[in-house]
């Protein structure tokens, strides 16, 4: 009683004081609150900015690779040059010297070019593959021989770059490039320049020449590799997940396997490449650079991801389903395969798609097993040498020609398109089949 009355005035004073202290600091604390909030927001914005800059720079660099500049020349399909004997058989037609046809047509357009050096520069205005275009036309339509046709031929990649303004400011151009640009402007004024969809880029294999380099070889290599990866990692991953989640006894061994799988998921991908090199290539003697070895390495790499996703999908199936199945007399195996697995399948497939998308973008381990070789042919089997899309990007990124920068970015656009489709599919599957228990 006594102590309370003693303390009462003191307490009142203290209370007043502390509320003052609180009020004094309040503005400061509210500012700190605002600042903290702003930091958080700013870092999200910064993260999104990085994303936008990344995409913008890739797209800005790459979209032009999907179009290509062509020049229209009035080519006289001289029977004397193509087929002097008039036999018209396909072998003669295929082996004729078609370069001799378009060169005069181009030179005739620029009568003022007479000296050797500029003439040579003028001839290199048109791509070295131009003869092949004319050949294909003549072989397909031999009746055109003897006539003069306006044929659209691809220009050289440096001219294409000039046309797309990718060589830098006009003032910085070399004399030769200025000269070429002059020719280009003249042809353009004569309506002899058009841009076409660059279907070579999507349909051809790799090449040293940017104008004939395409991604089809790499895309097929990726497809073959992924077929192996999915074919192996999906069944094995699902089986391992089922065993660990449903059947494995809880003991030291299964603990070890679990720790092991979690660790494997975090092992650097390049280490899997070393494993592939030492085991699959050196020990088992499987062919280097082949989609088979690539697929095996990627399988081992994606397996932990698949197992972890599979286990969480199995875990999300409620115990009541299991109990009901067991209750009506199913064996544990029947319970898992007939009741739990179908319910867990969408979740497992989502995990599998995400794992596969990661495997599609992976390149480091494939460098180790020789999938970086320069391969022109489109791979046809899982043992033929191949490369994959990300490695193709790596190879092109190293090439000095400017035209390859454009193609690298375009290949990245294609790769990202695949990845976005796959992840979109995963999101769709998850939304469509997700069940809340």
């Amino acid at each position, binding site marked *: 009683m006594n102590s309370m009355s003693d303390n009462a005035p003191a307490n009142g004073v203290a209370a007043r004081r502390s509320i003052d202290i609180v009020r004094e600091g309040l503005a400061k*604390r509210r500012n*700190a*609150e605002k600042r903290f*909030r702003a*930091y*958080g*927001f700013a*870092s*999200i914005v*910064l*993260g*999104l900015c990085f*994303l936008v800059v990344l995409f913008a*720079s890739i797209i800005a*660099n790459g979209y032009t690779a999907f179009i290509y500049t062509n020049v229209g020349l009035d080519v006289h399909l001289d029977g004397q040059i193509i087929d002097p004997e008039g036999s018209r058989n396909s072998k003669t037609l295929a082996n004729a010297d078609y370069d001799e046809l378009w060169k005069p047509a181009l030179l005739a357009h620029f009568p003022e070019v007479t000296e050797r050096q500029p003439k040579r520069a003028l001839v290199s205005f048109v791509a070295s593959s131009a003869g092949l275009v004319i050949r294909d036309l003549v072989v397909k339509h031999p009746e055109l021989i003897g006539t003069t046709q306006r044929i659209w031929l691809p220009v050289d990649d440096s001219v294409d770059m000039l046309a797309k303004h990718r060589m830098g400011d006009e003032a910085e151009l070399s004399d030769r490039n200025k000269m070429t640009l002059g020719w280009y402007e003249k042809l353009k004024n004569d309506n002899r320049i058009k841009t076409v969809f660059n279907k070579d880029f999507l349909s051809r294999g790799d090449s040293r020449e940017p104008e004939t380099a395409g991604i089809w070889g790499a895309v097929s290599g990726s497809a073959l590799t992924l077929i192996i990866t999915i074919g192996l990692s999906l069944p*094995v*991953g699902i*089986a*391992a997940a089922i*065993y*660990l989640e449903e*059947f*494995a006894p809880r003991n030291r061994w299964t603990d*070890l*396997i679990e720790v*092991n*799988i*979690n*660790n*494997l998921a*975090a*092992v*650097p*991908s*390049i*280490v*899997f*490449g070393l*494993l592939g090199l*030492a085991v699959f290539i*050196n020990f088992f003697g499987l062919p280097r650079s082949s989609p088979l070895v690539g697929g095996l390495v990627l399988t*081992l790499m994606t397996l932990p991801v698949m197992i972890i996703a599979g286990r969480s999908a199995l875990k999300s199936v409620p115990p009541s389903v299991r109990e009901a199945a067991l209750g009506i007399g199913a*064996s544990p*195996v029947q319970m898992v395969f007939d009741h739990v697995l179908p319910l867990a399948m969408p979740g497992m497939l989502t995990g599998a798609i995400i794992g596969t998308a*990661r495997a*599609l*973008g*992976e*390149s*480091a381990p494939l*460098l180790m097993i020789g999938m*970086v070789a320069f391969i022109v042919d489109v791979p046809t089997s899982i043992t033929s040498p191949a490369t994959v899309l*990300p490695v193709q*990007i*790596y190879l092109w*990124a190293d090439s000095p020609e400017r035209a390859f920068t454009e193609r690298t*970015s375009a290949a*990245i656009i294609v790769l*990202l398109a695949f*990845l976005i489709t796959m992840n979109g599919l995963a999101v769709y599957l998850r939304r469509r089949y997700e069940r809340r228990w």
Partner: protein
Amino acid sequence: MEKSTLLLLIILLGIATHVWSSRTAKSVAASTGKKLHSLPGFYGYFTSLWCVLPSLLVIGLWSSLEGSVITSAVLHTLPTEMTATTPEQISLIVNDIKNVVAGSRTAEISPEITAAADLFKTLSQRSNLLLTLISLALSTIGVFFARSKIAPDFQARNQVERVLTLGLIGCALVAILTTVGIVLSVLLESIRFFQMIPITDFLFGLKWSPQIAMRADQAGSSGAFGAIPLITGTMLISCVAMVVAVPIGLLSAIYLSEYATLKFRSIAKPLIEILAGIPTVVYGFFAALVVAPFIRDMGANIGLEVSSESALAAGLVMGIMIIPFVSSLSDDFINAVPQSLRDGAYALGATQAETIRQVIIPAALPGIVGGILLAVSRAIGETMIVVMAAGLSANLTANPLEAVTTVTTQIVTLLVGDQEFDSPKTLAAFALGLVLFLLTLTLNIIALRIVRKYREQYE
């Protein structure tokens, strides 16, 4: 018969057996009037397994042994003066023979080789024929043996399930085998490397120049294998990456989990996570094409000399890549902090920021630290960004504006191209792989243990 056709045939046989035996089981049940122990399908599976498994086993064994047996048989028929040479020459001869068999080599073949190739061809054909006969016979015997067991009280389901469970265990063991494979392959080659180069030179050497002189008088090819510059280079780039990723990732996780409206969160979180799904080769290209020149020009503008392969550019881009990793892990852990802690802090009059800084972050700290350790391990093992944007020269420096090289870059440079598995240059890559594996393994184990412990704390 080709092996692929044989495989297909046996699998088709298995399917046919399944249908046949299921029907048989049903009719047996009907004729005896007894109830079957298992569903008829299980009798079908039982016979299919007996049909397929033994022959698959034989085909597998046969294929792995066939090549070496035939080759040695063919080599024995060659004149002794051809085979009594070094192993390299023998492998050349074997190659020649195989080329002739494949029909890809026409010029300059000695008659012995042609004869050997013919023998090789006949032996292969015979071996294939023999394999076809044996496996088909095994399948048939298996089918009839299994069918003889079909009876109402035969426990087919238990047998099938036992095999199935064994298969499942086998699949789970693949994960263990992978680890064993990694450890063995990296360790064995590293031991060979350490027999050539003392381990102390490797671990404590300050100079890295793996080019070994072809000739003794060649200049500048000392062949020094000191890993210290590589490890410091890796650490430098990882540090830059963490300086970028940790604040941005952590702050955005805090904002997303504590401040953001549900709608903002549902848009911003997937967008940030796109950064994690972009292939690393794309980041590498971005670093080399956009970021490195940008930083170099910025440096030039303020009078700093920045290398065009600076650690800063590679680290910065790597940091961007790791942002979503840090942010989604931290997000999980912040969300796992119980609401009661927040309510307690608010009841004491703390502002939201104070609650976060003084209550939630300390409570979530172990988890966040674990997440950051995992991110560091990822940064150390990241390959493509550094291969494309960091340098190749092993400088021992702590200046992020200079070019450094990393462990992963060197592994790629040493192993891309032709390899000879007896030169220290190639083996050094495996030693570096061992270092990388041990480094990331330690980090992962510590991180996973912290994370696990933390999860248990609030569950």
